[in-house]
């Protein structure tokens, strides 16, 4: 996934470091460092390849390309791209993990339409 165009996402750039609680009602792309918690109910979070996040994440959709240390709660779907390093539990309805991604934690697939889409290498 390429970096987003300005205006489509709120963007936390490479050189930005944030400590504290992040919440919002628009999609967010993090390429910097965030430590704390992230609440984006109904919106999507993307952690870019340069992103380093230490936080529990609550969002509609979560895509991880960089590093995440914390639990993911995604009401719709979570994706771990091949460059992802994710340590923490994942609770979501749909999960995609590319070959090469590093994941350490528990997976909880929730809901009646719960399903997991394996991707990469297939």
């Amino acid at each position, binding site marked *: 996934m390429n970096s987003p165009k300005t205006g489509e996402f709120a963007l936390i750039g490479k050189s930005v470091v944030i400590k504290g609680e992040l919440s919002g009602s628009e999609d967010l792309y993090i390429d910097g460092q965030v430590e704390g918690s992230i609440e984006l109910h109904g919106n999507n979070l993307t952690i870019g390849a340069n992103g380093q996040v230490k936080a529990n994440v609550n969002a509609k959709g979560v895509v991880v390309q960089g590093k995440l240390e914390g639990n993911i709660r995604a009401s719709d779907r979570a994706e771990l791209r091949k460059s992802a390093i994710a340590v923490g539990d994942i609770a979501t309805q749909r*999960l995609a993990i590319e070959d090469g991604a590093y994941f350490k934690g528990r997976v909880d697939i929730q809901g009646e339409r719960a399903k997991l889409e394996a991707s990469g290498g297939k």
Partner: protein
Amino acid sequence: MKLFRSSSGDSVPNQNAQPARSTRRSNGLGEIAKVLAQQEQLCILDLGSTSANNIRYFTERGHKIYSEDLLEASTDPALAATDEQGKPMLDSKRFLAENLLYPSAQFDIVLCWNFPDYLDESLVKPVVEKLWSVLKPGGLLLAFFHTREAGPDAVCYRYHVMGGDNLEMQPIELKKHGRGGSAIRLQRVFNNRHIENLFRDFSSIKFFLSRDNIREVLVVR
């Protein structure tokens, strides 16, 4: 115990590397499949390289799965240390303090795949002891051990559970010190007595010898 690693620890090209996936029948996995079919809500710990396929397989059947890539974790550069003589070693205390931390989980099944053969010598015994402590009484542990015929360049695989006793094997190349170091090779070959000794605290052990120079070991806690 025969050690394969040279004293220099230099990387040697993996001549057996196979880019394509292959399949095999696994008697040990077949035994586990019977348990999976008979019981619900089992708690499974997959210690191999992360497989989305395995997560899907177990969660679709209503089981809980935890995933932890122990071999990858053992390549963390932060674990590099030196002994009293200044020789490079791995900080096993730190490794155990940072991995296999499941204070509230008790597992019904632990899938080790082939990591014991590739894991640093200092970690093998303490990791098996820790696995004993996180397994429920009567819980099952599956591990694969190479025979001597496999050779030091035996390919390391990511294992994908395909159903029943079918396994898909995807070659992977492990790097020392994270994703940029030299390749990790087979560290040693255990004979049956070593394996029995390694799992001596468990209540029973069953061996399955296959044609591809692998001994499957199914252990009951």
